[in-house]
């Protein structure tokens, strides 16, 4: 393989998946049990349980619908079963129709359309079993890195994140974008204090205005509550790790975005327009972020962790159980004091801080990991024996009625 390609599954609409997931998507939280039961005996099926209720209104429902459709459109989903009750506030049939425009196999079933709970489960299982039997015929082929969309995230940050993991991720992002790939960063709250640097990198005046708009909105919304955010931003773990203020955390966080121009800003539930580096407007809440990135078409996420207690969680901080098969997650460790927890990570960037590795070696290892994972190599979390299934949290700006 050349340095600008990887081995992926080319879908009929031209997009490229890096996994073949049978996605079972509930239209509402009332359908979560149906999704679980349909998927229960199908090893390749991923029931993506979530919190979408009937109590959300207006823009929140529009964004949730875009998000759920986006999850189905993600090229890692080889086939999609949408299950609903029939009285869900978001239409299972509508979602299935939109997802079917990709040409991938899509089915929808509701309690209303099937006539009974048991019939939804029976039909859903049978459909998934057939789709699973079709997957072995899919072959990876050499595709360009311009077909890759990478999410980038840092969490459990400490002072090492900004000098180990994040700079390495920034270099990898620059490499990907030089090859016409796409990268998406988010966590708008954690841009406060660093937005002036991002504005300078805006590809156009309208992008510059969009960056300021989303950061100002989150800052004003925090100030409007009158709540003192200290203790939450930075978090107690951030502070123990040497980060003093939100500005310091933000300035360290944006290092992972590398140095390329910022091509666009899009809302949670939306998708980037064109290649390059994009900002997704979403709070720094892991479940919502993972849904947002996957709905934006990211096939892969790189997750930078500092050190301390967050590095001691074997699965993924900010989640209940960590597994999110629809979008593999590469965990990167930054703090050399937590080297003994490196087995919980895919990449250990901490060697650049204690002289075990050069910065160039860390960057090259991460780059090879990204290309390797895109080509099928499992991440640590993909093989993690999660004890339960997470119910993923949808973004809600309110009101909940």
């Amino acid at each position, binding site marked *: 393989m050349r340095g600008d390609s990887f081995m992926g599954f080319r879908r009929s609409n031209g997009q490229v998946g890096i996994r073949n997931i049978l996605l079972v998507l509930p239209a509402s939280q009332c359908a979560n049990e149906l999704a679980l039961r349909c998927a229960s005996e199908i090893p390749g099926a991923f029931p993506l349980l979530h919190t979408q209720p009937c109590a959300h209104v207006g823009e929140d429902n529009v964004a949730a619908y875009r998000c759920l459709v986006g999850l189905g459109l993600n090229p890692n989903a080889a086939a999609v079963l949408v299950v609903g009750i029939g009285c869900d506030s978001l239409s299972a049939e509508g979602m299935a129709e939109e997802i079917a425009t990709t040409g991938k196999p899509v089915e929808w079933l509701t309690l209303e359309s099937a006539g009974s709970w048991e019939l939804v489960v029976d039909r859903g299982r049978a459909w998934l079993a057939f789709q699973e039997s079709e997957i072995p015929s899919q072959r990876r082929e050499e595709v360009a890195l311009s077909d890759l969309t990478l999410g980038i995230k840092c969490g459990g940050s400490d*002072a090492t994140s900004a000098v180990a993991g994040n700079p390495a991720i920034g270099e990898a992002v620059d490499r990907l974008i030089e090859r016409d790939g796409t990268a998406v960063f988010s966590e708008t709250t954690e841009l406060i204090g660093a937005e002036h640097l991002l504005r300078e990198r805006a590809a156009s005046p309208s992008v510059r205005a969009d960056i300021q708009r989303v950061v100002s909105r989150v800052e004003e919304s925090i100030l409007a509550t009158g709540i003192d955010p200290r203790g939450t931003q930075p978090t107690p773990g951030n*502070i123990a790790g040497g980060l003093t203020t*939100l500005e*310091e955390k933000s300035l360290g966080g944006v290092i992972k975005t590398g140095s390329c121009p910022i091509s666009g800003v899009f809302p949670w539930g939306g998708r980037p327009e064109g290649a390059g580096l994009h900002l997704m407007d979403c709070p720094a809440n892991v479940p919502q972020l993972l849904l947002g990135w996957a709905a934006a078409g990211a096939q892969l996420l790189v997750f930078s962790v500092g050190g301390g207690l967050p590095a001691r969680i074997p699965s993924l901080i900010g989640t209940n159980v960590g597994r999110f098969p629809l979008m593999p997650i590469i965990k990167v460790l930054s703090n050399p004091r937590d080297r003994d927890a490196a087995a919980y990570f895919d990449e250990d960037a901490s060697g650049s801080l204690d002289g075990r590795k050069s910065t160039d070696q860390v960057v090259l290892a991460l780059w090879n990991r990204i290309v390797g994972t895109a080509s099928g190599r499992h991440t640590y979390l993909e093989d993690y024996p999660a004890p339960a299934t997470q119910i993923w949290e949808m973004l809600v700006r309110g009101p909940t009625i």
Partner: protein
Amino acid sequence: MASTVNRPRALVLDREDSVAVLLDPVANGEAVMLLDSGSQALGTVKVSTPIEPFHKIAIRGIGQGEHVIKYGEVIGRASRSILRGDHVHIHNVESVRLSRGSR
């Protein structure tokens, strides 16, 4: 790293910075070797308290209310005067942002 003596090290990320990031733990009164991001030695600073690695030390005096600079950028302002060699953290630095309405 290129340091010739076995001193604890601290990284100065930008030439404008008023703080450095410790790479090693330090004991009270110990002298820390300052390095730039290319591992070139920039001199030493004596610290005034034991400090955890990756926390910050002041590499020059910072007056109360003055901005604290790391990465060449403002990370907050001194809530009390800070001496060269002091531990720089939440006890003597506060956010410039998100402070309206919160105090």
